[in-house]
């Protein structure tokens, strides 16, 4: 065999990171939460997740081949991530056809209409969830399959919304372990944090977005809690960080690459924005949970943030 010389412009080395591996890491980081969810809520979690993932992948493949007439992009695993995240945003016992509709909206409307991976202005999984929340409000908030918690019969976020002082009666440690009601992926706080740490360690995400969101929410809640005095000052922030989609949103949804700012400064502005909007909706809005809407709104602001938060030019 003869020698054939390769030619290319520099650099001739690559760091070895690739999009597929990053997406794989995100899926891996979501597995602990999936396990906790399955343990607490039963096998329906797995089937719902499987339906969502399969739906997203198949829809992406079909849209690529049939409508866009180009090579399918499912190999980058981003559709899998969207599927898992979508499932995590649904209640466990939701009918399968609603899951499929969610997948179709997430991939079809949220992602492929804008040109696929990297071009979508809004997080596809969130697009799907918000669509379902508005279209099927009853099914989307039907958490009867969840184990009853200390405030049995009612969901916790709305309860605390109107009576923040009741937070003292909650067993925070139980919430850590997954014993609260909420969507499938929202309940295992510890597992979600674990996944987040894994992503930080693998440098898939940086700390800026999750920390700024959670810190903003905690400070906001502490200020509100101070009005009630006593232990509420620190119990209310802790509750707000653990309840609902706060952790899932801050660690996995808000950090989505294409819908979040590029620079660290921009990420912090984005995170603070999400934190503030979430808390406003949670405390005074019509919906019990504001995470999805907050991320959605800040997704829309991202191009603007990118425009004004430029990296610091060397020598200036």
């Amino acid at each position, binding site marked *: 065999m003869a020698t054939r010389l390769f*030619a290319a*412009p520099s650099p001739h080395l690559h760091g070895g990171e690739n999009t597929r591996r990053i997406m794989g890491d995100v899926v891996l980081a979501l597995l602990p939460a999936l396990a906790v969810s399955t343990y607490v809520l039963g096998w329906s979690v797995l089937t719902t997740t499987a339906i969502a993932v399969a739906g997203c992948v198949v829809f992406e493949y079909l849209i690529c081949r049939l409508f866009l007439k180009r090579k399918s992009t499912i190999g980058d695993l981003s559709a899998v991530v969207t599927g898992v995240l979508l499932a995590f945003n649904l209640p466990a016992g939701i009918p399968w056809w609603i899951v499929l509709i969610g997948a179709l909206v997430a991939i079809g409307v949220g992602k492929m209409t804008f040109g696929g991976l990297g071009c979508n202005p809004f997080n596809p999984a969130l697009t799907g969830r918000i669509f379902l929340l508005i279209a099927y409000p009853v099914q989307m908030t039907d958490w009867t399959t969840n184990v009853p918690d200390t405030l049995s019969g009612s969901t916790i976020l709305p309860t605390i919304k109107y009576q923040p002082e009741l937070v003292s009666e909650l067993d925070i440690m139980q919430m850590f372990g997954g014993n609260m009601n909420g969507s499938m992926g929202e309940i295992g706080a510890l597992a979600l944090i674990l996944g987040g740490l894994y992503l930080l360690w693998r440098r898939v995400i940086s700390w800026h977005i999750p920390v700024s969101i959670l810190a903003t929410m905690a400070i906001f809640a502490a200020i509100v809690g101070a009005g009630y005095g006593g232990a509420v000052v620190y119990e209310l922030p802790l509750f707000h960080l653990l309840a609902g989609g706060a952790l899932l949103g801050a660690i996995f949804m808000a950090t989505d690459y294409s819908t979040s700012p590029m620079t660290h400064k921009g990420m912090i502005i984005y995170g603070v924005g999400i934190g503030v909007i979430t808390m406003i909706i949670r405390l005074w809005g019509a919906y019990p949970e504001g995470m999805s809407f907050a991320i959605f709104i800040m997704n829309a602001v991202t191009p603007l943030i990118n425009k004004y938060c430029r990296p610091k030019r060397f020598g200036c």
Partner: protein
Amino acid sequence: MNSLVLTVLTLGVLGVNLAVVLYFVAQKFKVEEDPRIDEVEKMLPGANCGGCGFAGCRAMSEALVTRDNIGALFCPVAGGEVMKSIAGYLGKTAAENSPIVATMRCGGTCQKRPKVNHYDGALNCAVVNTFYVGESGCAFGCIGYGDCVHACKFGALSINEETGLVEVDPDKCTACGACVKACPKGLFELRKKWPKNRAIFVACRSKNRGAVVSKVCKAGCIGCGKCEKVCAFGAITIDSHLAYIDPEKCKLCRKCVNECPTGAIHIVNMERLPKEPKVAKTPAAEVKAEVKAEVKVETANKE
């Protein structure tokens, strides 16, 4: 019922008020513009290719309307007929431009100019040109990643997978000149467009010496000068080991095509001249051939 009436009334009053406001605003900010600009723009092809030298068709039509002498303005896409009708509409005289067409001047196909290394960077001719000569070792030849194809707005260019070279579809080409700008090797030239898309041109841009050229490409011009000698119209010049056929002087007599030892002179949509045996070549025969050629050219022009 009451609420219905109230709604209609409110909206109606609101609408009328806004209409009044809008009317005055429109009056205040009205820009006086020659209505002929719109008309001329409609007559132009609307390709916004920039081939005329203006940013787009709008700018061109403004220039056509406002300038007194439009002899220097020409839309290569629309061609002479449209320019004439525009000039007629405006009451001015249009430029007399003979039609031209983009010509790609490299004949180094994959067979004639084999690849000697493997390029692994971004598939873009300009990128290749930033750091080395290209896969064939010829510093002047077609790189083949199609910067010109992307630049062409009329789909006139395509890459022939077999030869690895770019081909021009003269029927689609509007001679806007985008490819001339896009090619980092300067391979394109806007040449005179003959009837039936006939053409004769030197398909090589290599300014290297013959020995160097033939090392990397079997189809390159080696600067031997045979074509220059045989040309009866003085259309061929040799500069830095490279022949060039002046499209204004060339009469498509085809004599040079037979002389070229490497086949670097391309002949399109025409038969080659029959090869004459060298012995029989007398001055008289040459003159005859010349006359014949001229007659043929004339008939070609009539077509």
